[in-house]
């Protein structure tokens, strides 16, 4: 069980809810609720916004494709034994 109460998308201000729409576009998936991580990162836009931008820069297609980078991300998550 999470150590914090995850807020529903509707509890966030309108400006932040736009980030959730970007998240839906990023994953190209129609979530019932934005992923828990998206809601966590939206809690404090002062951290979440630049962190999210850094992530999108890192994941953008370049010498490695987006798919290849998703695999690198999965491997890093596995080595970190991340349950999420």
């Amino acid at each position, binding site marked *: 069980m999470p150590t914090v109460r995850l807020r529903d998308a509707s509890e966030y201000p309108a400006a932040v809810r736009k980030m959730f729409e970007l998240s839906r576009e990023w994953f190209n998936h129609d979530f019932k609720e934005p992923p828990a991580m998206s809601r966590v990162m939206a809690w404090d836009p002062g951290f979440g916004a630049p962190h999210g931008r850094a992530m999108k820069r890192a994941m953008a297609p370049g010498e490695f494709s987006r798919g290849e980078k998703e695999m690198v991300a999965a491997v*890093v998550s596995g080595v970190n034994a991340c349950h999420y």
Partner: protein
Amino acid sequence: MAGDALWYEAAQVVGITNALNVAADGLGAAGLTPVNPETAAAEVRAVFDEIRAFFGGAAEVPAPFRLIAHDAGYLADVWGAARHAFADNRLPRRLKAALAFAVSLTSRSPFGSAFYLAEMRRLGVTERGVFEVLGVTQMFSSYTKIADTLALEPDMGDIAPADPSPAPGG
């Protein structure tokens, strides 16, 4: 990256990378003497020659293989698994080197970080590509720790559809 086969290959790379790094970083630091290729038994030298050729005609046999070569049969089997895992297959070798580099960075392996960085470069990855892998590794090292600190439960499993194909030969 759809289809389970790609992910099985990636998992093999993760596993064998860790295995080699454990030997190189652990045994090397512990002071175990690596086998000298010049004085090794013929069967060990034959495996060493294969290893050097696989890694682009490397001047030296990578440390983890020299460290485990005290048992020729074990060396041959570990090398067989490593060669299979790192060879071009559904995933290209260049991506496998990148995965191994990410694994090594994440697990703080001095040997692996240096070795697979050199492998990526040897296989044609430029500095831009190296920093792409570094960026993904760094960002997901952050995300995973945030998720774990808050004990978030997985909620993104529906993004990728299940692969209904049977196991090879099934």
